[in-house]
């Protein structure tokens, strides 16, 4: 009986193979049908690639959470986890309701989008694009939570977070990425682009995501003030974080996410230049980390772990604008300079500006973001030249060091200035209003007790008896 079944099975398979072989050549395909089929596969590939890339960027919120809790004290862990968690969850809803429309809706004067709110009237392809852009918007917003950690009230942060995803981020994003003819920094009809003669280029958001987030963080820390005990007679002191393991895991998760962040930003699953993008991204990241390790080693006698981790992130942020426009060598130089900016930026913030940023977010995202924008103007190879012979999405013209003159550098610098004016200025006004209406900072006794118990009635590690200063 069993043997008969086996025989029957074999016969069936053979029949199927013969039938397929007979039927296939019969179905002749026209050239048009063939082209259509290829087109369909390519579209599907882009959809799938962008969903994978979005998933990687979504996962970066795990990274942000871990870096921020690792570099701060255990008494504020639950509060920081909640702030990061609510950033992505509110981000989904707010970017759906308002943010996307402001960023990609029908253009008004090159400044702001005006329709597609609640994703009304959009097609299936737009859902794909929305999801990718949404995870970016939430990334920009969450940068602020680390810089302002350990003393900013939960309610105040939520209000800021909503306004960031609804207005601050998407308005600047509209100027750069909306594709509108009049888009302030990139549209051919924009007076700025006309005057300088070349469009601004920010591949995946050194400016749009990181600078805006970083300078919003600077506005926040200026207003909220330093943590109790950070400065004594104006001299900055160390407040060690509670878990370097989390900080390093988070940093590596962020780096993983950058494969989606930069790699996905060609917005085309068939663009072979995503490979150059990913290689450049990691060269810069590595150079940034090595550079900070060497600087701290020379300056203090010991290589500093958490600053070195910041160095990797600085390299990643800086290369986010130029990654599709520059050579491998230039990427390493960009990462090395990002490393210098990380160390100098963290020290400048504490020694000169006297601001308290427990995780280094302002140096990582603000300063290195600006450097990334400028680096396009220096190192861009230009579409059609050398390794960019077939590139579709890169800075159009060569940069200053590649014989392109100062035009590209000038428009990149314009972007830097606008991102500072907008990111710092508007955030400052919004934080000021929040401060006046609900108060930005928790009372002193709550800050000393820790925000976990005061704001959430829980400790992140309830079974540990922790001694805190």
């Amino acid at each position: 009986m069993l043997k008969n079944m086996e025989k029957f099975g074999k016969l069936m398979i053979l029949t199927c193979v013969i039938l397929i072989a007979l039927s296939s050549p019969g179905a002749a395909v026209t050239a048009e049908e063939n082209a259509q089929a290829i087109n369909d596969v390519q579209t599907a590939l882009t959809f799938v690639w962008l969903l994978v890339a979005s998933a990687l960027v979504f996962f970066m919120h795990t990274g942000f959470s871990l870096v921020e809790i690792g570099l701060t004290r255990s008494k504020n862990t639950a509060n920081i986890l909640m702030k990061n968690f609510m950033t992505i969850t509110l981000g989904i809803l707010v970017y759906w309701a308002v943010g996307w429309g402001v960023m990609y809706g029908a253009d008004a004067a090159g400044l702001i989008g005006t329709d597609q709110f609640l994703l009304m009237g959009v097609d299936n392809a737009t859902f794909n694009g929305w999801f990718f852009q949404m995870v970016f918007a939430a990334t920009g917003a969450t940068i602020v939570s680390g810089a302002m950690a350990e003393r900013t009230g939960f309610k105040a942060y939520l209000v800021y977070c909503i306004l960031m995803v609804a207005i601050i981020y998407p308005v600047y994003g509209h100027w750069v990425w909306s594709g509108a003819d009049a888009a302030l920094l990139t549209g051919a009809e924009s007076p700025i682009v006309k005057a300088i003669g070349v469009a601004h280029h920010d591949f995946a958001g050194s400016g749009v995501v990181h600078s805006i987030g970083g300078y919003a963080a600077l506005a926040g820390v200026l207003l909220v003030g330093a943590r109790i005990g950070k400065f004594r007679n104006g001299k900055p002191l160390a407040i060690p974080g509670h878990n370097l393991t989390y900080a390093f895991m988070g940093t590596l998760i962020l780096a993983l996410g950058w494969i989606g962040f930069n790699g996905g930003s060609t917005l085309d699953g068939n663009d072979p230049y995503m490979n150059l993008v990913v290689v450049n991204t990691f060269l810069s990241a590595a150079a940034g980390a090595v550079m900070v390790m060497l600087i701290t080693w020379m300056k203090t006698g010991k290589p500093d772990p958490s600053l070195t981790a910041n160095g990797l992130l600085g390299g990643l942020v800086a290369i986010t604008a130029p990654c599709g426009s520059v050579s491998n060598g230039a990427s390493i130089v960009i990462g090395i300079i990002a490393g210098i900016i990380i160390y100098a930026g963290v020290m400048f913030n504490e020694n000169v500006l006297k601001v308290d940023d427990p995780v280094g977010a302002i140096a990582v995202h603000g300063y290195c973001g600006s450097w990334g924008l400028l680096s396009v103007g220096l190192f861009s190879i230009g579409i059609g030249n050398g390794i960019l012979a077939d590139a579709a999405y890169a800075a159009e013209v060569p940069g200053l060091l590649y014989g392109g003159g100062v035009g590209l550098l000038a428009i990149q610098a314009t972007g830097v200035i606008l991102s500072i004016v907008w990111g710092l200025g508007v955030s400052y006004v919004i934080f000021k209003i929040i401060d006046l209406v609900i108060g930005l900072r928790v009372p002193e006794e709550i800050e000393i007790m820790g925000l976990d118990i005061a704001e959430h009635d829980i400790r992140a590690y309830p079974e540990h008896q922790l001694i805190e200063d």
Partner: protein
Amino acid sequence: MYKVEAIIKPTKLHEVKDSLEEAGFASLTVTEVKGRGQQKGMVQQWRGRKYCVDLLPKTKIEIVLSEDEIDEVVELIRKTASTGEIGDGKIFIYPVKSVVRIRTGEKDGDAL
């Protein structure tokens, strides 16, 4: 009867515990404590800045012994816990008035 109280480096606990057991002194009480000696703690580094940890984690071992065992145990702990570096700790010896075994009610020498 005497109590030997040794404050040692936490990293030395296992070595000290094992060598005591080998020498026939299995009973002991261990507590995680914090403290400092003449060096006033230790300078560490966070994000490029020095800071002083002025109370360091230490381990306290307590053993109660009869008088004839004291010298052997103290010397054993001293030898095993020593690294020759600062912060190796100290050993204190106190007289013990009385001992009671909770389970049986045995007293003093019988209870050890």
